[in-house]
């Protein structure tokens, strides 16, 4: 069917999910399957003096117990890091081993010490309680800025100052000179707090070794099965890739936390070989809290300099990024290339310098979480500009308009070269903010706010504008920046003999609706029905290769790979059609699912051409039979969605509780294939940003205990914490990919947190309060009011 692009097509994947027929990893049961329970350190930092497994080994149903010693003796490497960021002085990044089970020392609460494998989950858990681990607790360090100080406990004995790397971007000299000339300087010191991703499906891994064929299968709740296979085979277990199949079936949410190669994946695979049986491990939620990689956790000082006309002239940023106890797969890239490079924002700032120190602490590893680095950058910029507006007594919207980069489409006008390495693809920033202000009726709201203040009502209006870099990423660029993998995507478009189409994509869907969006593209381009298209993903056996789904890349990069396949099909199809129609290729046009000789009614359908390709009795000479094309697409640049969010809050003076009254999001994610799905992505992203602004945040005590590692203590946004969201969009197509799309997965999260915080600060402005740290819990807000009354 043509004209499928841009339509709010209902999702084809929903049928199974609403019927209870989704198939998540934990739903898989294999014959003879055993169950694993992992014993984890309850200390953040402790020497392991000994492990006594005698009693546990004798218990009912126990098949085996492995400890860190077994793993070390088997010569198994730890899980690797996929991105290298070196020290400014050229020294190589510190990359301590991250063993599957630790033998000598636990370095965060949750570090895996031993695994019990038994005939049932219950028996494994029973036996685990009888494994006696003798710990010698040691002092721990949890705060990134404090971890670099002299005398701080070391996470890894051979890494001085707990520093993994230090890094800078931008022109330090120029920035210092510019800042020295600033007419007004606004300073912000803050913690962008640590978040716990909390995908509702806990992680799960099943290792299944088939000794007959010497073949391994790993089922894992992952966002990128192929990358897991590559990392596990090449760097951890040293097994040949063709002997390993990795399957990620339906995955119950990821938000970044399921990108990474986790120790449990390799552990289950290795244990399965030792025992010759499939073994399943499913995280309990308390394990998820401790071991799913966390997000954010930056300690930052930032300064923004303005000239006498209110133009931003300089930005200086120093950040300590908490990496946790080990380097997770993409950890070094998040606070550097996904954070520092975004500090231009939407503004014409002429001098920027950012300095980031990556720091080990006795905490859960930190890596990408929805937005990954870009929310931190946006928060920094948007809090600074709002605080500056307050200090300079100008309207925060007006200050933004004054500083926006002028429009450029990336075709007639070149992309915008930032001070921090990136070249934006296309942008037109003022309209999103104008539209958002129109939607909220900004002027009227300001009046309402003023009259409310006279009646003791604390209404706040908060604006945030953002730009992000997604469609991750051009391989050569990221390679030069330390990535140890390319970031292209693959797709195979297989036209079946009857004209039905199967598309094998390296992108992995875990809520994004690829089975619908991708099918829309294929149906539209081939002029066939949606039902005649199947999207296959998540299995390394059927999909040639893939880099997975994160960084809002699936449509911009994976969709473009599909487009390449589509072009190849149409090109070959035209040759076959020309032959069958006895016409020249140049005289054909393809529309409505058929090739027609221009100006005639002679035509041949897509299905007939497909059949001819597979039954090539009457066929162009020299042309290969078949209709099956694998394509790889490596993007020319990142894509740069942008938008404006506005939050309206009312603060209860008596309790400090923030009531989020309205939330407006006007985003520009380039062209839109399925507006329903894009809106859904924005909603979910916005909710997570609101979660950071008002509710969420991991709390460690001084000894490294995760204080709020359960749903009884960690506040997740609930339905009645949130309003209906008001969304709209503008469209500035991406000039460098065939669909003109930019990506929508992270936009909501990136824009929303600062909008909410700015709104609360706006509400509290009459008290002279300029600054509070997220999450803006009632107590924090009440304290601020109370202390400033």
């Amino acid at each position, binding site marked *: 069917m043509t004209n499928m692009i841009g339509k709010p097509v209902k999702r084809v994947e929903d049928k199974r999910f609403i019927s209870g027929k989704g198939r998540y990893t934990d739903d898989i049961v294999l014959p003879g399957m055993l169950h694993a329970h992992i014993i984890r350190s309850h200390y953040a930092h402790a020497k392991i003096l000994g492990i006594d497994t005698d009693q546990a080994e004798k218990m009912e149903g126990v098949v085996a117990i492995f400890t860190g010693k077994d793993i070390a003796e088997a010569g198994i490497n730890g899980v690797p890091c996929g991105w290298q960021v070196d020290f400014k002085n050229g020294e190589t990044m510190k990359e301590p081993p991250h063993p599957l089970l630790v033998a000598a020392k636990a370095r965060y609460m949750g570090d895996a010490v031993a695994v019990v494998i038994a005939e049932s989950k219950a028996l494994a858990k*029973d036996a685990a309680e009888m494994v006696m681990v003798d710990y010698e607790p040691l002092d721990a360090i949890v705060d990134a800025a404090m971890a670099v100080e002299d005398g701080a406990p070391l996470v890894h004995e051979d890494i001085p100052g707990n520093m993994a790397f230090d890094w800078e971007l931008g022109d330090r000299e120029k920035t210092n000179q510019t800042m020295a000339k600033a007419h007004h300087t606004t300073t912000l010191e803050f913690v962008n707090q640590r978040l716990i991703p909390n995908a509702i499906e806990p992680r799960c891994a099943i290792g299944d070794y088939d000794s007959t064929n010497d073949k391994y299968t790993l089922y894992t709740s992952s966002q990128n099965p192929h990358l897991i296979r590559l990392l596990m085979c090449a760097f951890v277990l040293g097994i040949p890739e063709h002997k390993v199949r990795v399957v990620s079936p339906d995955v119950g949410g990821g938000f970044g936390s399921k990108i990474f190669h986790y120790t449990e994946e390799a552990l289950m695979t290795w244990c399965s070989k030792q025992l010759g049986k499939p073994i399943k491990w499913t995280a*309990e939620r308390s394990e998820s809290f401790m071991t799913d990689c966390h997000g954010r956790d930056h300690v930052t000082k930032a300064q923004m300099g303005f000239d006498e006309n209110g133009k931003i002239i300089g930005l200086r940023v120093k950040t300590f990024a908490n990496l946790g106890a080990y380097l997770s797969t993409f950890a070094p890239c998040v606070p550097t290339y996904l954070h520092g490079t975004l500090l231009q924002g939407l503004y014409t700032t002429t001098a920027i310098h950012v300095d980031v120190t990556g720091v080990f602490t006795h905490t859960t590893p930190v890596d990408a979480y929805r937005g990954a680095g870009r929310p931190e950058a946006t928060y920094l910029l948007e809090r600074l500009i709002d605080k500056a507006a307050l200090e300079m007594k100008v309207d925060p919207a007006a200050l933004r308009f004054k500083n926006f980069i002028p429009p450029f489409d990336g075709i007639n006008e070149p992309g915008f070269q930032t001070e921090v390495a990136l070249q934006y693809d296309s942008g037109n920033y003022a309209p999103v903010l104008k539209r958002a202000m129109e939607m909220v009726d900004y002027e009227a709201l300001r009046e309402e706010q003023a009259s409310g203040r006279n009646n003791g009502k604390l209404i706040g209006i908060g604006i945030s504008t953002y730009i992000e870099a997604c469609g991750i990423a051009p391989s050569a660029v990221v390679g030069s920046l330390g990535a140890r993998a390319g970031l292209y995507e693959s797709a195979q478009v297989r036209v079946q003999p009857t004209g039905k189409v199967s598309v094998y994509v390296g992108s992995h869907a875990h809520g994004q609706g690829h089975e619908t969006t991708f099918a829309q593209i294929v149906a539209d381009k081939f002029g066939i029905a949606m039902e005649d298209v199947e999207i296959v993903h998540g299995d390394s056996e059927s999909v040639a290769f893939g880099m997975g789904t994160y960084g809002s890349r699936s449509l911009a990069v994976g969709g473009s790979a599909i487009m390449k396949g589509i072009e190849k099909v149409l090109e070959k199809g035209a040759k076959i059609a020309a032959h069958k129609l006895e016409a020249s290729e140049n005289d054909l046009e393809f529309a409505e699912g058929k090739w027609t000789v221009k100006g005639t009614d002679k035509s041949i359908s897509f299905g007939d051409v497909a059949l001819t390709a597979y039954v090539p009795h009457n066929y162009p000479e020299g042309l290969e039979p078949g209709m099956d094309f694998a394509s790889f697409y490596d993007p020319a640049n990142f894509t740069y969605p942008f938008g404006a969010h506005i939050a309206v809050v009312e603060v209860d003076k008596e309790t400090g509780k923030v009531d989020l009254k309205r939330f407006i999001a006007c985003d520009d994610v380039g062209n839109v294939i399925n507006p329903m799905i894009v809106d859904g992505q924005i909603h979910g992203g916005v909710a997570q940003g609101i979660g950071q602004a008002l*509710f969420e945040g991991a*709390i460690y005590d001084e000894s490294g205990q995760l204080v709020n590692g359960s749903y009884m203590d960690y506040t997740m946004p609930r339905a009645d*914490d949130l309003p209906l969201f008001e969304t709209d969009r503008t469209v500035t197509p991406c000039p460098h990919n065939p669909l003109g799309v930019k990506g929508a997965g992270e936009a909501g999260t990136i824009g929303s947190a600062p909008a909410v915080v700015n709104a609360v600060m706006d509400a509290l402005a009459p008290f002279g309060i300029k600054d509070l740290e997220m999450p803006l*819990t009632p107590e924090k807000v*009440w*304290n601020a009011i*109370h202390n400033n009354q």
Partner: protein
Amino acid sequence: MIPNKFDYQKATTVEEAIEYLVEYGDEAKLLAGGHSLLPAMKLRLNNPVKLVDINRIPGLKYIREENAMLCLGAATTHYDIESSELVKSKIPMLCQVAASIGDLQVRNMGTIGGSLAHADPAADWPAGMLATEAIIVIQGPEGTKNVPAKDFFMGLYTTALAENEIITEIRIPIPEGNIGTAYAKCVQPASRFALVGCATIISKNNGLCDRVKLAFTGVSVNAFCDEAVEHALTGHAPDVDNITIAAEKAAINVDVLSDHFASENYRRHLAKVYAKKALMEAANNL
């Protein structure tokens, strides 16, 4: 989240349940709605050897009026109470208490008796029980006794209920005259327990409060009646000024809990705020 092994026994009468309790002592636990006990068992914080299921004992689920008392069977669920027209017509605050507990699914299963026996310092029912001067009917091997709510809650997870006893009924005197009731709760946002829960009943005679009961949960290690607030409002008109003055006396002479949701100072402040909210609402309901 799998409990330790235990033996399971369905009791068919209260007497049978008590026999198990006598036989197994502290190794036995009663299972009512299970919404306090099972979560603890799943985390292996509570590991009974013998689990006695009292849910199927006939005659423990009822709501009726008897001798000017509202009588609630111990196995009556929060939802049953929340949706009871009888309770609503007699002491509407109890419906508010029930409706504020946890979430819809928890209220479907959790029972008032189970909640009282567990005595979580942040549970909602204890405040409601104290403010209404409820009587907890307890049956043990020696027979039945009536324990007033004020003597029932003794400390953190500690009550007057002995190891071998079972709560069978809650009797709540139906207040007479011109009364107003309310429950005001500041929700702990993660668990939905009470950071501060304030239950109150006031009665007005000749324009003045002749009786004020006000109890807190979540504020201290156990729920308590705040006599300072009660005294401050008794004998005064329930208007905003008097209520404000009375509410200011809240939680003054108690040890106040502190956690990452509310420090001692903030919780004490919340107690005042929610005392005022509850009293104002009760006054409006007069």
